[in-house]
């Protein structure tokens, strides 16, 4: 696979106003040059080793496999990457690139807050000014991450427009960039948006898959990742895409179940091809092409579009897609905590849940790898409320009283 494709079949491209044509062309040139420059890649490698803590482990989840009685389960522990999720891989790559381009300011959108935290952290290390756009609904859902971003010195700007979630934060970041691009890099957090973002984000995330290739001393039968915009999935799948195996499986947010506004499933018949946020892909749209509201228990999967390369790989059948409901994700979170002592991020728990049924379907002797894209610390307010609502509420009330004192 080429490092810069622009289009993936019919999907991808760069559908932006004239004002963004120049900054994107400049970014494309800088990316294409840097990714082939041994000096840049060495700098990136050092950042990965010293700060991110790479390679992240590939864990044989023996207990989980036994409990399910199907295929052997392995977990790629991206949640052990510094700042708690795979998002730092891309944030570090792009922040280094921004610096190389002479930019002094970085802006980013965030949903779950993991990309915001990763970006804020990388900017703190590299001395870049940092502004994070975050929907007010996501600020509520993922409050702990807001504090970490601010601790890293970033300014978190609440976005109340539209549905006040991830897609609206993307719009707001683009609005900022149209007047700030001279000194500002827009550090987009998933494998979507106008080119070169989908290619660039995949390359910076491909370290996940490349490590798995090294670490797995066995034949992999299936690989499973959750898919919001698709950055952890495409990075994890990347070195295997051009091969005929293993099976590559993406888990989308099934939310409350079928029906408009209840989920964020883009890879079944409820979505269609559209152009939104600068790229052509599959989106959840109404009959006029207006973007529909979405729902997921996980802020990071609560997005109406899917990265163009995954949309194309879904069309060709190389990547299979399944959907996982809020309830199934919560059950998977509980299962892996109990069997393996690991807390999945709510997003990653969707991959966990998908893997639980695929493991049974594949049966004993087969091997399956889950990408645990992040760890679940950030979700404490969601998981505690779901698992132990009454006690958690009592605790919060007591604790808030203590703060007032």
């Amino acid at each position: 696979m080429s490092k810069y494709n622009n289009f993936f079949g019919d999907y991808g491209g760069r559908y932006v106003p004239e004002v963004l044509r120049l900054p994107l062309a400049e970014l494309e040139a800088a990316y294409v040059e840097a990714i082939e420059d041994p000096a840049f890649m060495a700098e990136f490698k050092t950042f990965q080793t010293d700060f991110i803590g790479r390679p992240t482990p590939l864990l044989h989840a023996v207990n989980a496999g036994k409990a399910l009685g199907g295929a052997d389960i392995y977990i790629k522990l991206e949640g052990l990457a510094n700042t708690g999720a795979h998002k730092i891989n891309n944030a570090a790559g792009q922040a280094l690139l921004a610096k190389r381009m002479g930019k002094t300011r970085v802006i980013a959108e965030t949903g779950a807050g993991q990309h915001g935290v990763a970006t804020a952290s990388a900017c703190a290390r590299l001395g870049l000014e940092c502004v994070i756009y975050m929907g007010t609904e996501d600020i509520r859902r993922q409050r702990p991450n807001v504090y970490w971003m601010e601790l890293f010195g970033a300014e978190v700007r609440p976005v109340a427009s539209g549905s006040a979630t991830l897609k609206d934060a993307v719009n707001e970041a683009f609005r900022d960039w149209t007047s700030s691009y001279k000194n500002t890099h827009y550090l987009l957090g998933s494998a979507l948006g106008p080119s070169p973002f989908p290619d660039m984000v995949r390359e910076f995330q491909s370290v996940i898959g490349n490590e798995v290739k090294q670490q797995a001393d066995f034949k992999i039968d299936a690989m499973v990742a959750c898919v919001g915009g698709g950055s952890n999935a495409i990075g994890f799948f990347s070195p295997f895409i051009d091969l005929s195996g293993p099976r590559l499986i993406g888990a989308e947010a099934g939310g409350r179940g079928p029906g408009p506004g209840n989920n964020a499933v883009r890879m079944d018949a409820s979505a269609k091809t559209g152009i939104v946020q600068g790229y052509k892909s599959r989106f959840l749209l109404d009959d006029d092409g207006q973007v529909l509201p979405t729902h997921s228990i996980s802020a990071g999967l609560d997005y109406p579009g899917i990265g163009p390369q995954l949309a194309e790989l879904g069309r060709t059948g190389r990547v299979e897609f399944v959907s996982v409901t809020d309830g199934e994700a919560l059950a998977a979170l509980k299962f892996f905590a109990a069997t393996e002592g690991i807390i999945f991020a709510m997003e990653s728990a969707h991959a966990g849940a998908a893997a639980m049924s695929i493991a049974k379907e594949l049966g004993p002797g087969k091997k399956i790898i889950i990408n645990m894209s992040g760890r679940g610390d950030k979700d404490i307010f969601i998981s505690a409320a779901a698992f132990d609502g009454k006690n958690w509420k009592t605790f919060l009330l007591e604790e808030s009283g203590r703060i007032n004192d």
Partner: protein
Amino acid sequence: MTELNTKAGTKLITHFIAGYPDIESSYETAVGLINGGAYALEMQIPFSDPSADGPVIELACRRALEKGFKVSDGFRLIERIKEYRDIPVYLMSYSGIVYNMGIDRFTAKAAAAGVCGLIIPDLIPGADEGLYAAGRKAGIQIVPVVVPGVPDSRLEEIMAENPDWVYLALRAGITGSYTILDEVNLGFLDKVKTYGVKIMAGFGIKTPQQIKTLIPHCDAAIAGSFIVDRITSSYNDAAGRISVTEAAADAVRYLLG
């Protein structure tokens, strides 16, 4: 129509949002803009994710969609406006809306409704999904948007599409905030003018003084957020002091000085 709709030779193109504050009020807005002396109308079809627009227009689009605005309502609105007065109507929207209907179909429908030109800022020459060809086929103009800072080589590419009019956004950024007119944007206007195209110039136009400064350098000035703001105030005024039609007409008269 030219003299009837212009005052002292100043051509003002007025931007308004179809379906905002509701469908009937947006028709009344158009009538007011015409009565006030607008040279042409630029009607925006609301899109859920208007990423080139500032807060005023973003909110207006959102409100229109919350009230159930459909693209077909927009075409009907244009037909009604054209019945009221045969004034040039430009239709502005985003790629998401146009692509969803099919570029050819959208363009043909716009032409049939009486639209004279389409302004689709995120379908630019070279990545237009066939919009410019569709415009030629349907016999309506496609109006490219350019901004100061676009390099000469790119201007050449855009001009190769042979546009009648060019929409010149007077600064980078989104719609809304006030634009200072200086050598940079006025100089850019003069440069674009050398291509022999007609220029409509806007973004952050809120005062008659700005328009006086602008007019010697272009063919028409565009006002958008300023008008939407005026409509919002009139519509939200519980005392109902002036109708939306009057508010729109007043806004145009004020800008024309």
